Structures are given as structure tokens and as C-alpha cells.
């Protein structure tokens, strides 16, 4: 087999050296009852050529050649070629977590740059080396807030990504951490601050707000933070569309930022692998989950980097750790690092502006549900989203996400997204189809 680098004669020599008559001898100490006495019921191995064939055939069964207006936490952005060039280097791809600092300075330096850029983007003091994704970063942030405040109640805006809230509920259930939801303004689509005032109390550890929120609207993080702080709670700001940070002011008043970096050159890949982050203020660093890289010196006095503050982590603290996270998303974080480097200070702003321009062009042609200001996503009322989408598929267009599944009160609406990769022609086709008599008939 091509991945096994030994000849039969070498195996024989090794078995002899081990005093084993056959390979079977190596397993002789296993109790007979536990042994599998038949071959695994899996097809024999195949060649590289056949493997490519198999996956090309599967890929052909997915959407190909469609224009898409899906966002909702996963965005279509152009991936600069440099990203795959860098992460395909075996030195990054095939190395382990950088515990041995002397021979891991490449990964450590890149993570230090990553942490720095995430701080610059979010306006926070410190960022970790990554979480699994945005959805798991949210409960980790909530647990962190609970440790800091010594409180346990969590309030999450209903405009936080619905699947993130589902994950939060799964984690919170057995932590004695009740999660309640805060509504949104029927017109604005932003967090209902009155509802927040009503629900917050002296036991609230965290108020969780997303911006741009699930409806694409720039949410009022500042006002929510003021309310949270007045009650001694922390404000956790969530983002799913990292490109928005190229133009949006960093979250005023946030204590913890929990975000998803998929927009930074990470392929949609049917939902993963992505990379989440947690960023916070200096004073909370010892309550952070996940790995952190810090600067130090080597014995010659040269600048060097290493994993640090690991007394927070499971391999040292075991059941008293801040989280059970071990493996994170280092290579994906590296993709985001290369992406941020390629676009840089001006480019990320320009990219954000292009997203803004595209989405506003499309929003101008359809019926918006909410009045709040949006970035590159917005909610439109279309009547029956499922039927509309079915009609659109015939035109090779994947429409927006029907919202009824997550928000029964918005069953007549869908969430549309436009990015720099969405062409004017596709947007015209979409808006035309939404208005066309044929579509209208189909809706009726």
C-alpha cells in the first residue's frame, strides 16, 4: 500500500528483531474474545485516480453553476490564491500543536500575528489562537462571563444566529446556566432594548448580541452594553460576517467578542471546518478558553514565541480548566491570517465597501422587512419563500434562506445576501424573478 513505507523483507527483519514469528504474534496478548475474526466489511483500497473520480462524482451531485444568495453565517467571498499556497506548505499543514517552541516558531509567529490582527479588528486587548467555530465560541464566552461575574443567567438576543443559540442551549443546560432570549423590534429588526431591560437582573452574567445580526442589521451593541453594565453583567458581542469589520466601528462597550472567521478565505465547505475566535479585555485573560501564544526570548536573548498561560488549559488543570478544548482550528486561522495580510488595511475596507454597495443595490430592488441599517444581508418579504426558491432554481439561482424554520413569524420572508462575488446581472435576474408575473402567479 502506497502509504506504508516498508517492504515485506523489512517487515520480516523487524519481526525477527522483535522475536515475533508473525504479525499475529504482536496481538497475541489480546483476549481472544475481543478480537475481530473477520475482515472489515469495507471495499478493498483504490487508487488515487479512482478516489478523485469518486469525489468528482459526488461533487457533481451538488449545486454547480448556480448563482447563490445564501449567507446566514456562511458567506461566499473570493479566496486569494496565496491562501492555499501558504496552507498547502507541509511545514504548516503537517505539523502538530506548537508545544515544542524551538521547532515551531513558524506556527507560533503566525498565531501571534493572528491574535494581533483580531485585536486590531475588534478593538479588544487580547484574542485567543482560535475556537472550533463561531457557534461554539458563544457558549464558551457565556461560560467565561459566568466565571468572571460569579453569576449564571444568560440573555441572548433572538437575532443571534439561531444555530448558535441552539449550541448555547446544549452547553448551558448542564451548567446550571439558564438561557433566556431577548426579542427584536418588529420594525427595526434590532434587539428590543425594552425587553432587555425587563429581563435583565442581578443574576445575569452575560448579554449576548450579534452585529451585524442574523437579519443583517447593525445592532445596537452600545445601548445593550450600557444596560448590561448597569446591572453588572458583561456584554458578549457575536459576529458571523467578519468582512463587516472592515468598515464597521469596533463594538463599543463589548467585554467579550465571540466571532466566526469563515468570511476570511475559508471555503463554505458545507459548514466546516471554520474558525471561531474569542477576544476580550486584558483583565479577563486568565478566564479565557483556548490556546494563547505569547512573546518571550530564547537563551540567546532573541525574540521568540511560545504557548503560554496554559495553566488555564485541560492538559494542566484537568477538571478545573476554563474549557475542555484541545485541538482548535490552527490551519484555518492561518488561512484567515493570510487573507488579512493580503487585503490589509485598505483592502479590507474596500472589500467591505463593495459588499455594502452590492447588498444595497439589491436591497433597493426588493421589499425589505426591517428598517435597521444593514451590511450585506437583509430580510425580504416574498410570500412563500419555498415556492419562490423552487421557481428560482429553474433559473439556476439559489435564493435566500427561508426564515420560517427559525422564526415562525417570518414564514413569508427570506434572508438574502450579496457579496463582492455577486454580479449585478445575477441580482437583476433575482429581483426580476421576484417581481415577474410568472413568479407572482406561482406564488398565488
Amino acid at each position, binding site marked *: *500500500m502506497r502509504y506504508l513505507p516498508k517492504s515485506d523483507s523489512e517487515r520480516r527483519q523487524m519481526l525477527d528483531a522483535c522475536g515475533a514469528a508473525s504479525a499475529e504474534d*504482536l496481538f497475541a496478548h489480546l483476549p481472544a474474545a475481543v478480537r475481530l475474526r473477520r475482515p472489515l466489511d469495507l471495499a*478493498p483500497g483504490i487508487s488515487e485516480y479512482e478516489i478523485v473520480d469518486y469525489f468528482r462524482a459526488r461533487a457533481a*451531485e451538488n449545486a454547480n453553476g448556480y448563482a447563490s444568495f445564501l449567507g446566514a453565517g456562511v458567506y461566499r467571498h473570493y479566496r486569494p490564491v496565496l491562501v492555499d499556497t501558504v496552507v498547502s506548505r507541509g511545514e504548516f499543514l*503537517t505539523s502538530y500543536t506548537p508545544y515544542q517552541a524551538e521547532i515551531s516558531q513558524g506556527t507560533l509567529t503566525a498565531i501571534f500575528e493572528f491574535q494581533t490582527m483580531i485585536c486590531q479588528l475588534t478593538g479588544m486587548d487580547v484574542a485567543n489562537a482560535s475556537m472550533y467555530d463561531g457557534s461554539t465560541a458563544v457558549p464558551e464566552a457565556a461560560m467565561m462571563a459566568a466565571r468572571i461575574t460569579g453569576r449564571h443567567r444568560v440573555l441572548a438576543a433572538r437575532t443571534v444566529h439561531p444555530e448558535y443559540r441552539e449550541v448555547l442551549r446544549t452547553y448551558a443546560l448542564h451548567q446550571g446556566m439558564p438561557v433566556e432570549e431577548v426579542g427584536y423590534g418588529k420594525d427595526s429588526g434590532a434587539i428590543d432594548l425594552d425587553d432587555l431591560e425587563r429581563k435583565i437582573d442581578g443574576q445575569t452574567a452575560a448579554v449576548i448580541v450579534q452585529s451585524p445580526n442574523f437579519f443583517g442589521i447593525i445592532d445596537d451593541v452600545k445601548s445593550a452594553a450600557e444596560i448590561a453594565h448597569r446591572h453588572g453583567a458583561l456584554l458578549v458581542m457575536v459576529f458571523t460576517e467578519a468582512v463587516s469589520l472592515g468598515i464597521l466601528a*469596533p463594538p463599543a462597550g463589548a467585554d467579550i467578542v465571540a466571532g466566526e472567521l469563515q468570511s476570511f478565505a475559508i471555503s463554505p465547505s458545507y459548514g466546516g471546518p471554520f474558525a471561531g475566535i474569542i477576544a476580550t479585555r486584558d483583565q479577563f485573560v486568565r478566564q479565557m478558553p483556548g490556546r494563547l501564544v505569547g512573546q518571550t526570548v530564547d537563551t540567546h536573548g532573541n525574540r521568540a514565541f511560545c504557548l503560554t498561560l496554559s495553566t488555564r488549559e485541560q492538559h494542566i488543570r484537568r477538571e478545573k480548566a476554563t474549557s475542555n478544548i484541545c485541538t482548535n482550528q490552527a490551519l484555518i486561522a492561518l488561512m484567515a491570517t493570510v487573507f488579512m*495580510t493580503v487585503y490589509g488595511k485598505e*483592502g479590507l475596507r474596500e472589500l467591505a465597501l463593495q459588499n455594502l454597495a452590492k447588498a*444595497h443595490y439589491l436591497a433597493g430592488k426588493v421589499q425589505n422587512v426591517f428598517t435597521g441599517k444593514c451590511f450585506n444581508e437583509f430580510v425580504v418579504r416574498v410570500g412563500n419563500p419555498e415556492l419562490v426558491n423552487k421557481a428560482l432554481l429553474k433559473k439556476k439561482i439559489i435564493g435566500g434562506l427561508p426564515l420560517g424554520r427559525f422564526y415562525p413569524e417570518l414564514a413569508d420572508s427570506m434572508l438574502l445576501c450579496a457579496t463582492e462575488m455577486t454580479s449585478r446581472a445575477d441580482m437583476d435576474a433575482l429581483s426580476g424573478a421576484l417581481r415577474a408575473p410568472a413568479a407572482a402567479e406561482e406564488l398565488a
Partner: protein
Amino acid sequence: MIRKVRTHPSQNERLLFERSSPGKRAWQLPELDVPAVDPVEALGAANVRDEIPGFPEVSEVEAIRHFTRLSTWNYAIDHGMYPLGSCTMKYNPRINELVARIEGLAWAHPYQPESLAQGAMEVMARLEAALAEITGMDAVTLQPAAGAHGELTGILLIRALLEKRGDPRQKILIPDSAHGTNPATAAIAGYTVENVKSTGAGVLDLEALARAADGDVAALMVTNPNTLGVFEDNIAQAAEILHAKGAMLYMDGANMNALVGIARPGDFGVDVMHLNLHKTFSTPHGGGGPGAGPVAVKKSLEPFLPTPRLKRVRGKWAWDFNRKRSIGRVRAFYGNFGVLVRALAYILAHGGPGLRNATVDAVLNAVYIRKGLEPFFDLPYPSPNMHEVVFSDERQAKLGVRTGDLAKRLIDYGFHPYTVSFPMIVHGALMIEPTETESKFELDQFIDAMISIAKEVETDPELVKGAPHSTRTSRVDEVAAARKPVLRWKPA
């Protein structure tokens, strides 16, 4: 005598922020085909930022040189043997990288219609079936993002089943040889942890287990083979003890590379387990992730698996979101799909018989290393080992040289160190896992290097204690890093 490597110069490189200059760029966007929008007007002045202070500005050439230079400061499997015990650092086939990037897979959106995602769903269904066959379990969820995430999922499943029976119980039992993630997971799932001592032979102590397994125990979390690389030969009896008390057996599958095709956890009493696709199934570690931590369960736990589940409806794949007894989601969407593609490509490449051959070679390599090094290093647990072998630094420590020093010296010989000081039941542990993808030539060089270091400890201990000597970065001051944390770059 160091045969594998010679020193060579490496490029210096400043941080991105230190080589930035205003106006340099590595990007170009197409002309906008729609009217530009004034951000202040569209978003409100308070919502618009001026600039991102400190963000890098470099050219394309500098960007690629920057990351290429950084990369040369890493050691990687592609350089050579990476014998980290418990981490299964095996070769990462490049075909896996290629297929994961095929456009129809890489650009599939998780919300695209099921009718246009059949290929992605088929890949997941086929992987689920293969993992169920390999583990001997009844059902598999691919949702967890990594091993520790799989552990959490598994313990939540146990909790859900016990709750359904009327009492979720309070405790999780964990052997003293366990990975740190096990107790950390139990705590996050709301359980208290009770450690169970191992026997003198380094395996589960059935008597201690029987004493500890009272009506308040939800489960035992055990790694098999354990972190000594030793098969828990009374695992089936342990399962019986637990089951008799209404408790469950959780298996940490980190060491599954020793068992694939040889023995199946489902056949020796395990109720729920996780796999690390980034270990056993060759997906790249990438400097610390991404991984994937599928969880395999017996039938009794299947109703509680995370939502959604794949189901077959009129000859097509569909997602089933309507699962009343499910523990809920453990992450958004369906899992680290790109990692799942790579793992399936690996399974297809090996096939059933090939996977077993890989296991045999993995064990052969570890036993071969043991035979080669036994005369020179203390072996505290002489039971037969499987895919890894754990020595202690006892002999070398008498001369003032510890396992961490030996590991650093190994770097000078051109190898990545083994896992240092773990498991904790071995004082000064050297935990060595070669994996099956090392040639006899590489293994012989490794054995020679270790023997040479053992001799250096006797003749020139300071040489070993000051190692590494050949790297561009010498030993780093980890204490200083933790005492005064500098976690981001700031302008001077």
C-alpha cells in the same frame, strides 16, 4: 553521531506589522458593477470606522516570502518522524487535500437545498457507515469538531439516557492515566470527577472499579489501548461491572490506531466513544487543528444523538431536524465536512484489508522501537505494548537529565520530540508513538539517536541539558512568557 541532519542557514523575518508601509498592497478588486455607496449614509456615522489601526500593508511578494520564511522554522511530518505519543502523527496523504478542494464540495453552502447537496450528504453517510463498521457500533454522528468536543457530546448522550431513566447521576470515573480532556469534559457536562487508580501493571484495577462504581456513577471514561499503549485486557469485565450498576462505558478513541481491523470497541462492551479523524484517519493536524471528533454509539443512545441526522427519504438523503430526544446541537451546521472528506478519502485508499495492515505496521513499529531502546531506558510497565511505548527517564534523571532535556536533544538529531511527561502515572515519561508511516530506515535512525543521547547523558550531560543547539531558536523562556504576558504586537 548525528546522521540525519546538518545545520543550514534560515532567513530572518520580521513581523508583518514591522515590515508594513502605507499604500503597499497585495490585493486588487474588480471594478464595482453597481453604484458605490457612502458608508456614513448607509450605516450611520457612529457605525463607521476610520481605519484599522496597525493592520498590515505589504505587497504580494512580501506576503508570500513572509509566510514561506515562517514555515521553514517549523518541523513537520513531511520532514520526518514525529513520534508524539497519543497524537498519531502519521503521513497526511496529499490526495485528501486535492479532493477536499473540488469546487462542488468546497463551495457547498450548508443551507443549499438538499436536492443540490446529495453528494455532500452521501459522503457523510458513507463515512458514518464506515466508522460504524470499524468501531462495531450502531450509529455515528459526525458533528463534533474535535476529540474533546466528541467527548462532551458522548457524555451529554450518557446524561440524556440516564435522565430518561430517571437519574442522571453525579460522577464520572476516570483512570489516573487519562488525557486531560477527559476530566475537563466531565466537568463541563456537569459531572464531578473521581479518579480510579491503575494496577501495578498499568491497567484498570477491577477491584477498585467495583468499589467506585456505586449507584451515583454515570460512566467510566477509558482510553483503550490506554496511554501506556497497553490494551486494557479486562475491558469486557469492566463493562460488565459498570452495566450491572446501570453505568456506561465511554471510550476515548485517541488510540484507535492500534485497533482498526483488529478489535472493535462495540464488541468489548463500549457504549459510546469518539474518534479523532486527525489522528487515526490521517487528516492533517495543521499546527493544532482543524480536527473532527465523530461519536459512535450503541443503539440505546442513538435517539439522543445531536440534531440533525441524515435519513433516507424516497431514495434521497434528507436532514432530520425533528428529533425530540436529541441532546440538541453541539455546533452549527453538520460538522467539519472538509475534514470528513479527507478521512473518507483515506479509508477508500486503504480499504478494509489495508486499514488492518496499517494497524499491524503501527504496532510493529512501536514494538520495534521498544526492543531497540529497552536496554537503554527504563520501562516502568513491561506489559506488551501496542501502537506506542512509554519509557521513564529514571536512569537519566539520576545523572540530572530529565525527559524534557532528552526530548530537546532529539531535535538536534533531526526528530521531533516524543510526548514529554505524560501519562502522569509514569514519572518522567517518554511517550513514543511512531505510527505505521515510518520506514525501517527512519526508525533505525531514531533508535540510534536515542541510544546516542543516552550515552551523551553519561559522558556529557550538559550537552543534553542545553539542547537544542542546532535550531535557529534556542530554548525559550516559557516562565517569562507567562509571568508578563505579551499576547499581541504593539508599536514600539
